[in-house]
């Protein structure tokens, strides 16, 4: 019976043809490594956020008087299993960002941003940026001390533009800050706006961007870890079942780790201080942004001049965006590029160190370390054109042609 219904639908919708052409006849390199699974993990993380988020909206109240109780009483205690949904959503946001970071660093390692994939990279960067804003807006919603004061600090950051010579006079920073908060203070208007952005606008934009990203990935084909483009007619393995089953198995492992945190280790994702209701008159002792913003925060904080700090951390975002154009070497993948590999390690260690420094007190030593690792981060980006020129020379000397 079920089979007949299936056939009836298929005769009309031609789904099996779609499956055959998109999943089976679609050929990918045989030697894809584990990090290639971060893409599918990111998609799953996105679906988890949407499903859990929809359930949360049913009980959450975007109102400064009741937001905290709706999250911590109604959701955590009153409605059965909503604690699980909240755990999933809060841990899910962190895992989503972690996976996106790993995905970005994988792309850098295998030089997956190179022609013909520059556009894929740029759309990916947009996803990353919108995701950061989504997480930031979501973090305000439970209306705890960290939500509130974290946003106070974040909304202060643009005002550092105003300490610049000349343009400082126009008070652009203050305008941006007021615009972010929806007024001079963080209050009901901020919460209402953030709620709207967080549950509708930003997820929809993300959905659109993710779709474009996936289309572009398909259009360009998957890069290969050793940097050689495959000839799809002769080489390559069918996406299904070769990759689907492999990455499906990895996905189960990923979800197992995820649910370990959901059930047994939530103290980082629902931090203790955020169980304290927001109080505009009580400044907490330690305010630091969430871990996914800490590297930028440390860069901002380590540079003694506020305006320069602001420029520096925005410059990092811009450099990340134009990465495909900084690296114009004919060689691909860190596997074949020793110089690039060295700088890649500098990049990874600097980013990790900056993140960890973000939660430490700003002592002079830490500020010094912050500056050193900031330099490391910039060194990676600025070394790329130099490495590219050197590699072009090397490539030509070995008889390579300009493609």
């Amino acid at each position: 019976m079920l089979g007949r219904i299936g056939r009836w639908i298929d005769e009309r919708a031609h789904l099996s043809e779609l499956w055959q052409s998109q999943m089976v006849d679609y050929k990918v390199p045989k030697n894809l490594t584990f990090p290639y699974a971060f893409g599918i993990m990111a998609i799953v993380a996105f679906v988890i956020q949407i499903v859990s988020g929809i359930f949360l909206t049913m009980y959450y109240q975007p109102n400064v008087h009741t937001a905290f109780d709706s999250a911590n009483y109604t959701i955590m205690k009153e409605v059965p299993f909503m604690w699980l949904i909240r755990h999933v959503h809060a841990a899910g946001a962190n895992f989503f960002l972690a996976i996106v970071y790993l995905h970005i660093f994988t792309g850098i390692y295998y030089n997956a941003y190179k022609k013909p994939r520059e556009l894929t990279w740029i759309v990916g960067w947009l996803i990353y940026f919108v995701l950061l804003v989504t997480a930031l807006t979501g973090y305000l919603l439970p209306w705890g001390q960290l939500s509130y004061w974290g946003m106070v600090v974040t909304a202060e950051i643009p005002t550092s533009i105003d300490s610049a010579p000349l343009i400082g006079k126009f008070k652009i920073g203050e305008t941006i800050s007021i615009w972010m908060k929806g007024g001079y203070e963080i209050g009901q208007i901020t919460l209402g706006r953030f709620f709207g952005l967080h549950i509708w606008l930003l997820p929809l934009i993300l959905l659109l961007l993710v779709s474009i990203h996936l289309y572009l990935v398909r259009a360009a084909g998957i890069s290969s870890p050793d940097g050689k483009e495959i000839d799809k007619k002769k080489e390559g393995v069918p996406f299904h079942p070769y990759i689907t089953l492999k990455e499906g198995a990895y996905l189960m492992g990923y979800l197992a780790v995820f649910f370990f945190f959901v059930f047994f280790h939530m103290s980082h994702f629902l931090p203790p201080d955020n169980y304290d209701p927001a109080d505009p008159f009580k400044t907490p002792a330690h305010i630091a942004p969430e871990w996914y913003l800490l590297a930028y925060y440390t860069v901002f904080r380590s540079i003694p001049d506020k305006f320069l700090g602001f420029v520096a951390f925005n410059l990092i975002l811009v450099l990340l965006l134009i990465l495909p154009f900084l690296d114009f070497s004919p060689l691909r993948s860190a596997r074949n590029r020793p110089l690039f590999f060295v700088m890649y390690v500098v990049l990874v260690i600097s980013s990790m160190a900056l993140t960890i420094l973000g939660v430490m007190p700003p002592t002079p030593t830490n500020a010094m370390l912050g500056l050193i690792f900031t330099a490391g981060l910039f060194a990676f980006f600025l070394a790329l054109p130099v490495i590219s020129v050197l590699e072009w020379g090397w490539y030509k000397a070995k008889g390579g042609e300009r493609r």
Partner: protein
Amino acid sequence: MIRAVFLTALAVVFFFVIWVYNPFVHKEKYEVPQQYLKMATDVSYAKEGKQLFEQNCQACHSIRYDGVYIASVQANPNLKTLQEKYGKVLPRNVYESVFQSDLIGLKESFGKVPPDLSTMYLVKGPEYLFAFTLEPQKVLPGTSMPAVMAGRPEETAKIVAYLKSVAEPSPEEKNKRTLMGVSVIAYLVVMGILLWLWRGRVLKRMGLH
């Protein structure tokens, strides 16, 4: 291979530091004798703790998530009517506006309204709560909270156990959650292994191995 191991190790250490245990962050420690710490974290004392709370703390503090309001509010017949309408936990704005005069009275005496303690256990942890309640001035110099429990460590520990019982899920609930967590994780691991084995067979049949 060496590169893969190196980068994987780096990533694992990094996430361990930021998500599980960060040795670079200094946390304030409060010395609590072992016997009291054990009582303070044992929710079987919660019932006694609640009575002690009513006697010693309720004059100033509420525990809204347990339907416990400050003493003067609890004695007010309006409370019952409101609870019939809104349930045991009144919305904060309703509570704060209807009983404004009680709260303002406290604010005038102590400089601020003493905080609601529903989630305080999650924020501060048992060590801090025990140390602070026993000797407020020592832990938070200049605080306006009086040392109502001075010289009564055992009863203080029981009050902390009560605060824990309000803030955290009950032990039975916790056991249920543990069981659920273990089953979910076991299911995923088994499915992962099965998928992997099945893949081996499919690939062999297709000559792709």
